[in-house]
Every structure is written in structure tokens, then in C-alpha cells.
């Protein structure tokens, strides 16, 4: 973690956000309609269900330089497809272990249940995560991977 970058107030992390269509993506629309301001750090990729999120996507995003990854799905019991979010939760635990082993700070991967009505929650989560990542600084993974390849 580089202290120079930490002190750089202008640095803004890039968060890849995988949001499910029915709950969290709709919540992000609601946040928009309600004009809730939050940090411009997320880049949303819409999937139908959080169950679609392949661990490969997460690893790939980290390797390509994402500073953080946010996964948003429906609350337990509320999945549009019954239980895709439980599958997602299991993969999330697995991924936390894997990224830990890769030397990625586990706070860089976050899973949140945000329902269609929780625009406010979305705002809070993005702002919180942005703050955490600002403290952690840019993810070192991309460079590490590139030097390994070289």
C-alpha cells in the first residue's frame, strides 16, 4: 500500500459493481430518481441474478485493475429466482478466501443485499466502500500480476 497515493486526495477508486436486475439495479435506479448523491466510483454491470456472478468475473476484474468489487443482490428469501442469492453468498465466502490468498485485502470485495426500495442503502454502501478503498489506496494486484507475467 503506497502512502503517497493514500495522501492523494484526488485519487478516486474504481469499483466494479455487479448488480442483480431485480433488486440492487432497481435500487440504483431509485437512488437516481431520488437524486441521492454518492461517490462517482462505481461502474455497474447488470446481471439478471447475483447467482450469475462467476468467481472468474471477480478475479478477472481484480487482475484488470479494479480497486474494489461490490456485489449487490436481493435480501435472503427475496431472490427473484428463489435462491440465486444463496448461491452467490456461498461463492462470496469462497472468493473471500481466494482473494485473501492472492494477497488482496478482503475489504476490497463486498457483498450487500439491497432491495429495490433501498436506494438510500445503496448510497450509504457506495460511500462507505469508497471511503474504505480511499484508505486502502489503489489495488496493487494489477501490477503484481503484470510483473509475474513479465
Amino acid at each position: 500500500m503506497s502512502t503517497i497515493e493514500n495522501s492523494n486526495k484526488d485519487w478516486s477508486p474504481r469499483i466494479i459493481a455487479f448488480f442483480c436486475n431485480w433488486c440492487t439495479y432497481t435500487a440504483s435506479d431509485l437512488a437516481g430518481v431520488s437524486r441521492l448523491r454518492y461517490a462517482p466510483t462505481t461502474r455497474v454491470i447488470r446481471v439478471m441474478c447475483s447467482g450469475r456472478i462467476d468467481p472468474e468475473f471477480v478475479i478477472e476484474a481484480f487482475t484488470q485493475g479494479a480497486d474494489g468489487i461490490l456485489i449487490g443482490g436481493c435480501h435472503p428469501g427475496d431472490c427473484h429466482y428463489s435462491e440465486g442469492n444463496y448461491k452467490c453468498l456461498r461463492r462470496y465466502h469462497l472468493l473471500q478466501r481466494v482473494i485473501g490468498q492472492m494477497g488482496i485485502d478482503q475489504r476490497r470485495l463486498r457483498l450487500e443485499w439491497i432491495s429495490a426500495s433501498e436506494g438510500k442503502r445503496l448510497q450509504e454502501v457506495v460511500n462507505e466502500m469508497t471511503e474504505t478503498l480511499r484508505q486502502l489506496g489503489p489495488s496493487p494486484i494489477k501490477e503484481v500480476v503484470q510483473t509475474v507475467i513479465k
Partner: protein
Amino acid sequence: MPINDEARVGFYICHCGHNIANMVDVTSVAEYAAKLPNVVLSRDYKYMCSDPGQEMILKDAEVFKLNRIVVASCSPLLHENTFRNATAKAGINQFYFQMVNIRENASWVHEDKELATVKAKDLVRAAISRVVFHKALEKKKVPVNPDVLIVGGGISGISAALNIANAGKKVYLVEKDPTIGGYMAKFDKTFPTLDCAACILTPKMSAVLKHPGITLMSYSEVAAVEGYVGNYQVKVTRKPRYIIEEKCVGCFACIDACIFKEAKFSDEFNEGLSKRKPVYIPFPQATPQVVLIDDKTCIHFKTGKCPQSCAKACDRNAFDFDQKPVTQELEVGTILLCTGFQPFDAARAPYYGYGRYPNVYTSLEVERLVNASGPTGGNVVLRDKTRPKSIGIIHCVGSRDEKTNKWCSRVCCMYSLKLAHLLKEHTDAEIYNFYIDMRTPGKGYEEFYDKLLNEGVHFIRGRVAEVSDWAINEHEKGKLVIRAEDTLIGMVRRIPVDMVVLAVGIEPGKDAQDIRRVFNISCSNEGFFLERHPKLAPVETFTDGIFIAGACQGPKDIPDSVAQAGAAAAQALALIDSGFVELEPNTAFINEELCCGCQVCINLCPYHAITFDETKSVSHINEAICKGCGTCVAACGSGAITQNLFEDQQILSEIYGLLVE
């Protein structure tokens, strides 16, 4: 970024008036996009969704030989279909289109134009790199079953049922209570016209019963729903009445004959202000006119030692003490939810003394007291049978209150005025209305308020702090004292009264969360059913083919409920009359060559769409059952499963696009 030489992308960025252009530098995004691989053309335009905007895509496609379209504008949940259609009109397969959300996801939520523009560029790059990998697909057309399920038989469900049945379609109306009618059936008069509620409601209730197109399933609940728009399979559980419905003619001989000579059990329909027997009918005009037995109080069910005098009195042999819950399966194409509200529980506001002081009533109890067919025949008397000489009506109980519910319940001011008028008429008492703000928006509503102002009713503006029986002078002795700050004269007042009426607010129905799960729809923060769009799709939900109407969507009076029921009926009819629906082709399929036969996917599918082909030793997805969640795709270790519209390569190219500049 991988290059596909054949892809010729046309990129468009929308200003959305100032909605986007104020926070995202659209020209710089357009210039940036023009230089990205595969982009043949890049433009910005004021309103892409307008006709000229769409025309532009059509013309450009021809001139520039485009075969991919990317539009950066609002949310795909709003306009994806608009632009897919434009793409199709331009002679390009509609799935060679990708939308970038830079309004809800950027301009409306950010404050720094530079960073918002950087974000927009990232998102645009991702979409352009993704669209290159899109495949041409066709939407599957499936026929729509013309039959309709309506859940909830209040005024909303009744109106919708009649609308749809009058258009010649078959309707199943499922009501959880023994009778239809909802809350309206409890009222004597309705604001602002003060017309008799029963006179306008009961004819509609019997019209429902008599309509050849409507199957009324009272005392029933929906247990499960499967399928998709146009083709829903519904399981309805009919609770046992212990009466064979078709045989009962509603003569009530059994009620007279019941072993209980006196009615002993709390009567729900009268809000507990009277008693009923174990065999009963909720109210004389209940629809259907069929009695039922409450097995929790009936001697037969409690001890098995009742002579069953009720059954003996029935000359139609309608009794069946062995009835069990029966599950019936229905097939329908569309569903309307009209499950209404529940009143705020006054015990949650203990400072108003409900439950502690017998003379504190809820508005619903008073609706029954003023009702000519209510527990006292319309004679307004307190529990000790005396007539109140002074009455305080407290508005906003459980509404507009940080401690309970924040929202305005919309109907309480008006019904409090109505009750003030009716109580004055019935008792000639002094009436005090305590209000925070008087809210009377509606046709003839403000005029109704004016009328009340001239009827000698007192209005005190201020939130009531407390109701107590603590007298500080002779004058207050034996009375309930309402303590409130009168904000118009700026002092605290104590008004002693004989009776207090709590204008309880409108809350989401008790089982709203269960219903939401069964029907796979969402609720808003307060717990009311969530509409697809607050302005443009107020009766649609995010689940195609499921509509909402009435107080289940939010606090609403009868005129608005009926209007919404009409809107929901029209939406359902439009869907039915179009004859078919088009389904998103986002289903998954397995490449048999790659499948190793491990069967990991099979248990993951919530719809049991995946089976194992023993002869070929591979798994197979039934496309008709697959709903396209993609869970199996993410789990297949062999990479054998592909989800249309969400292929691995498409998502990965989106990730590269976002991160690799």
C-alpha cells in the same frame, strides 16, 4: 480490447434535455467514443428517445452500414425496449443493441462533472466492447392465457373483476375472508358525498356473484404461483367453512339453532363491538350468502360432544363437519393484486390510551357505531350505554409521525370530517377535531371541509400529546382529557371529552410481505407493493403480467382505488387481447461437447429445468422451463453452459472495457 472487424458500431449519447448534459460532458464523451475500436459513427442528441432521435438511428444505419447500436442515456429498465425497437426498425437484430445508463447511474447521482464524465466514458467503453460480442437472437412468442386471477375482493378487486368479466374474459376472484367487500363494507356513509356505502357497494358485490364470467373463491388464499407472464399456474387453498357452499341458501336457521343461545364470541366484522356465535355470517349482505363455522369456538371441534343442533336445523343438508382445506389449481395469464391495507394498530400509540380507557375508540369502531346496521343499530352510545356529549377526534394517529409511520395516510382527514359530521348528526355532541394540517385534495373535498366549518364542529390545529383521565379541576372530572398544543393561538389546551376517536392511518396489509414473496414482486420502503414506475406505470409491477391496484399500492380512497382498478383491468385486457407475449431470450443452454456430466448444475436450478441424459451422459436444459437466472452458468466448471444475453465473453468484455483504457 479484442477487435471484431465485422462489427460496425453506431454510438449515440443523449442529453436528456439538461438531465444528463448538465453533469456529463456529452460532447467530450461522443468525441471519445468516436475513436474507440469498431465505432463507425458517434453522435450526441438532445432527446434520443424522441421520434427524431430514433429516426436518426434508422437513417445512419443505412448510410453507414451499421450493425451494432449503443445508446448512452437513461436506465435500460425504462427505455431498453424503445431502442431495441429502433434497432430492429433499422434492419438490425434488436439484440445487437446495448444501453448505457448514464442518467440514473451517473448524472443524477453525482456532483463532480469531471468525474461523472470519466465514469460515463468508462461505461461507454464497456458497452462498445460488449456489443461486439452480441449475438442475433429472436424473442420467443408464447400465447397468453385469457383467464385472469384477482386476489382480494375489496372495492378495488370487485371493480377490476367486473371490468374484466364485462369484457368477456374469465375471472377468478380469490378473497381470504368469508365475504368480499373489504373495508368499504363496514362504512355507513362515504366522503365527500355522504352517500350510503352499502347502497353503492352491495349491488356490485352481488353482480360479482351472479356474473357468469366470475368464479368467486371466498375464504381462500393463494398458496403458490409458478410460470410466467401469460402462463401462470396458481394453487389456491380453500379453507373449510364446514358448509357445502352450493347447498347453503343463507336462511340462517342454523344460527338460531346453535347450542349457544347467546352469542358469545367477538364479532370481527363489528370490530369486536358485538358478539357472534360459532356458526355465523359476517354481516347480513355478506357475499356469498353462506354461513361458516369457526372451528376455534365451535363445541363440536373443541370437545366432539355437541348435538350439532345447527346441522339438524338445516333442511338442505349443507353441513359437513369433515371438510378439510382443499387445494385447487388454476391456469391464468395475468394476475391483479388488490389486497388492500390494514389500519394502524392504535395500541402502538399508548399515549392516546387505546385499550386503557374504554371510551377511546378507533375510527373503524366508530364507523360501525354510526352504521344503521352496526352493533347498536346506528345509536351512538359509549360502552356504558350513555350518549357522549363531547367527542374529540384525533387526526394522524400512526401517520406523519417519526415514531410510527412517516407517510400521510391520505384518507384520515377526510374520513375524520365525515365522522365529525355523522357523530354530530347522531348525538348533537360538541365535536373537536385535532389536526396537524387539514389535507383535503380531491374533487369536492375542500368544499366538504367548508361545509363542516359551518356545522359548528371545532377545529384545533396541533398534534395531541396525550389522552388521560387525570382531572385537574371539577370540570374535567370523569372525563378524558385531550392535551394538545393549539398552534394557532400558541398555547397548550386541555379539552375534556366523553369520547375519543383515533383516526388511525393506513398501513401495508398484514401479510403484504408474504404476498410479495408468493407473487415475486417488490415492496416499497413502507411495505406497500412497488409499482414499475411511479408516474408512467403505476399499476404494473416489475414482474410482467402482475398488476396492482387499490390500497395495497399505497394509501388511497375509494374513488382512487376504483380508478386504479380500472387501469389495472385495462392493462390486463390489453395483454390478453394482444394474444401473445414475447419473452426475453435470456435462457441458458448446455454445449454437449463440453459437458463432463458431473451434474453439479442440476441441483442448483431452482426451477428443475436441468435433467440428465443417461444415454449421452450429459445434462440438458429445458428452455421452456429455464427462467434465465444464470446460476448454473456460473457453477459449471467445464464452461459448458451459456446464458443468452449474458454470455461469459460478453460480461468479461464489459469488465475489460471498464478497466482497460
